[in-house]
């Protein structure tokens, strides 16, 4: 890559990546920006480690998810079906 292309085709800076890193990890970043972030994370060790750290935090947090009980889900599904087919059940507020 020559001098000019290094200047004009330069990727994102660490600061720019830091600004959008959370959106990138949450898959909320605009699609056009994703390859630029990815390119930087692959090339920059510090930002790559930062992304790995936040990814591990996210994964760990996802383990906190509590599934509703089967009884609860059955009751709510029954209500949803009843609303869809015959309206508000008698006795429901």
């Amino acid at each position: 890559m020559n001098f000019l292309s290094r200047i004009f085709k330069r990727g994102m800076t660490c600061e720019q990546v830091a600004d959008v890193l959370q959106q990138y990890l949450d898959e909320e970043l605009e699609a056009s920006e994703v390859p630029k972030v990815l390119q930087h994370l692959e090339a920059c060790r510090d930002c790559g480690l930062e992304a790995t750290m936040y990814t591990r935090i996210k994964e760990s947090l996802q383990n906190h998810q509590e599934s509703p009980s089967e009884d609860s889900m059955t009751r709510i599904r029954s209500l949803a079906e009843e609303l869809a087919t015959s309206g508000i059940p008698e006795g429901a507020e």
Partner: protein
Amino acid sequence: MPELDVLMRVARSITGNPTDADDLVQDTLLRAYRAIDKFDGRYPRAWLLTIMRNAQINRVRRKRPELMRDPDTTLAVVANTDSDAKTPESAVLDQTFDAAIERSLAAIPSQFREAIHLVDIDGLSYNEAAAVLDVPVGTVMSRLHRGRKLIRNDLTMDPEFERASS
């Protein structure tokens, strides 16, 4: 109806217990049924979550009127209940990465914790979390960023972190 799973998880987050969560989802569905003519057909999950948020505010207002003085308190009530004193058992459990995260999550300000709970644990998008919290999307992003940064900083000071992450 896959949205029911999401509604149940979010209801559990904002009520803090399974019984109230069941009641809140039931209330949400009944309100949605009555308001279906006002639904424009777009973003059904966000619509349902907005209804849920309003239903929860009414429920809290009925039960504890004094909590409504500060709007942020509504969803913070639950989140503030999880800072237990350490026991020998919990000290052992703390020696894992997940436990360190859990401890950090419990220690950060409730506004940050709520945003993290809705997005990272309940799996909502920024827009959906904004609907539940009744704040702009930018506020959700800011709270997430700051909350995660606090957790991250906590971890790097945690002596167990190196071992857990290696």
